[in-house]
Structures are given as C-alpha cells and as structure tokens.
C-alpha cells in the first residue's frame, strides 16, 4: 500500500491524516503536493497525523523536513502527531526529533498552536 492522505479542519488547525508508506516516488510526492497546496492556500497551522504510517524512508524524512521548512517560511507552524516507535526512532537517530514539535494527543496538539 502506498500513502493515503486525508485532510480535515479542526477549528483553525488543518489536520492531515497520513496512512501507509512515505517513500521515494508516489508516497513522498503525495505528501509534498498536499503540503504545498495547503501553503498556497495560506494554511498556517498544520498538524500531520502519522499514526497510520507504517514505513518512512530517507526521502520521506526529507519531505517532512521540506514541509516543515516551507510552512515555517510562510509564517506557519507544522507539528507532528502520533508517531509510532519506528518513525520516532528514525527521527531520533537523525536528530530531527527535537526539531519537530511532536505530540501524542490530538486535542493537546490542537491547543498547542498559538
């Protein structure tokens, strides 16, 4: 299974539910397109729910970083929600865990946006 992305609005926060594999090719480009589209539409508060992501490779990590940078440069915030152990481990060994604002509870994550 490749990646599936579903976007929903909770107040002024855009939540992107991501499921499947974020890998080079279809998976990472779908995530990139979704985030760029949101930035184009001036969404400032974006929460990426990675709870159903089964696999992410270095290209997928690159897309997370790219999305973070694009949203931040546009004056917005991109936060991560529900990382499984593998994704958490990957972000830890690449020292990105502290770069992202990571949450385990959606309601708390929504409240954390300024």
């Amino acid at each position: 299974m490749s990646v599936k992305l579903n976007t929903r609005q909770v107040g002024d926060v855009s939540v992107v539910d991501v499921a499947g594999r974020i890998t080079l090719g279809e998976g990472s480009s779908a995530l990139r397109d979704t985030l760029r589209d949101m930035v184009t539409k001036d969404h400032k508060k974006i929460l990426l729910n990675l709870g159903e992501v089964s696999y992410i490779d270095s290209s997928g990590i690159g897309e997370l970083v790219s999305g973070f940078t694009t949203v931040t440069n546009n004056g917005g915030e991109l936060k991560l929600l529900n990382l499984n152990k593998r994704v958490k481990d990957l972000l830890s060994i690449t020292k990105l865990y502290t770069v992202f604002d990571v949450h385990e509870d959606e309601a708390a994550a929504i409240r954390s946006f300024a």
Partner: protein
Amino acid sequence: MRHEPEIVERSLDSTLESVDSAEEIAVSAAQRAGFDEDDLMRIGMAVRESMVNAVVHGNRYSEHKKVRFSVANRAQRFTVRIADEGAGFDFDHLPDPLAPENLLRTSGRGIFLIRSFMDEFLVRRLEPSGTEVTLVKYLVSK
C-alpha cells in the same frame, strides 16, 4: 526458523519497482534466516536506501543499465550486495547529516541510515564503471 545457507541473485531494471522487489526479497530471506522484527525493518530500510542510490543516483533510471542484486545467508552473516553501472560518487566525503547546519537539508541521510542499521557497509568501485555496496548484518550480535 532455518539456518542453512541461502543465496538469491537477480538482475534488476533501474526502476522504483525494483527497489520494492529488492526490499521484499531481502526481508523475506532475512525472516527465513531468523532475524527479529526490528532487524527486519533495519535490513529492509538499508536495502531500500542502497537500491535507491543504485537506481536513482547510479544508473539514473537508465533502461540500458541494470542493478545486480544478491542476498546470501551463510555462517551467521546475512550479506546483501547491490551493484550499479553508474559513474559513482565519493562516499568518503558526504556531508554529516547530523551537523547542525545540515539538519534541515531535505536529502543526504540515506548512507547514514545504512551505516546505522547494518553491521558492515563496504563500497567498491567497479571497472569500467559502477559501484558495488556490500551490506552485512550479523545474525548474532557482536
């Protein structure tokens, strides 16, 4: 669980489908060799990253170039070899992806992940062109 020697060899097209195939073959063989779930993930990802390097950076998706791929499980050593036909690049002078100035780079983590996940990582230049990487995971940790 099976521990007798096993060797798989394939000549793969320079496509992203080959990346998936190689990962599946390696993970299946590693599973038969007796690796646990965490190691299967590490081996799978190391093979995926190496295949991406061969297909994308080495052979540049050329339909005229192949990726030679082999998996061998012998004497507690699980070995994967991946060879492309590209011009090659300098593995010894890659930017450190953990350096603060590189943390927000969108690429450059593949080799770091391979080295993190495998027990051995060897690179050999091929003549007249190409690069062969050898990935080794020990079935019993050092």
